[in-house]
């Protein structure tokens, strides 16, 4: 078997790899903000007055949504919200190397939104269960 054919067999794992990669990034930043919030206040918009509480909230938000992405639960919603969140950060940072990198991350996150749940997501499992339950109910009613 050719190498390209072997790699093609792994295609189905692409969304999982992307989900995990993105989730790890958001988890890292989320935990970092909880661990040591003070340096991150510099990235807050001016009207928030460098308040540390917002960093804690942001950290918790990122951890929760990254976890949803990891589990593949509400995949589209989680990836869309994280993508918007990144866009907010990009505008807050202004043009620079970090913002350019974040643009790439935002695009990857939105591509996750476009793709939706993959076969390794909890979403798919729950949807299957829901459909199965519905068909059972309709059979009973008949």
């Amino acid at each position: 078997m050719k190498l390209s054919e072997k790699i093609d067999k792994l295609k189905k794992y692409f969304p999982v790899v992307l989900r995990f990669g993105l989730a790890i990034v958001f988890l890292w930043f989320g935990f970092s903000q909880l661990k040591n919030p003070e340096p991150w206040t510099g990235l807050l918009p001016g009207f928030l007055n460098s308040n540390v509480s917002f960093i804690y909230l942001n950290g918790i938000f990122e951890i929760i949504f990254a976890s949803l992405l990891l589990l593949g639960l509400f995949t589209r919603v989680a990836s869309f919200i994280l993508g918007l969140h990144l866009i907010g950060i990009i505008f807050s940072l202004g043009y620079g190397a970090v913002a350019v990198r974040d643009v790439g991350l935002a695009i990857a996150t939105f591509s996750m939104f476009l793709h939706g749940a993959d076969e390794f997501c909890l979403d798919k499992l729950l949807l299957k269960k829901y459909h199965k339950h519905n068909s059972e109910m309709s059979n009973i009613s008949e």
Partner: protein
Amino acid sequence: MDRKLKIIIPSLIVVILVAIVVFSVGNDSSTNISNTQNNNPGKQGLSLVGNTTQGQSNQTSSSSSLTLEELSKHNSEADCWVVYQNKVYDLTSWLTKHPGGVNAILPYCGTQEFEAAFKRQHGNSKASLFLKIAQLMGDFKSKSSLV
């Protein structure tokens, strides 16, 4: 149920691993900060918490003029001075806290190029934050002022 566990368990493992990495690797940088402070007893530690009072006292300590030759001696991670608006500031304690990493600032330690790089990266949006966190060491005596 098995399939659910196959999804949940690896996800949990990833979350725990990332948390371990963040909370254990981060201890090294906080140790570096305390070592820096111990090696330089004359320099105050910088923290954004309670920085308003420090910021005020930082801004009134300008009593000496420093030349480029003196500035260039402070060009390392353990001792980083930069020039901003014709004044010399000590950024040593902030280096490891910088969200963009130490290497974003380190090349400009002990040089006059910090201000240009800072404005390229942050524009004017972070100027007030910089003045709060940096410790003022004195005025900068550029060559033109010596002539």
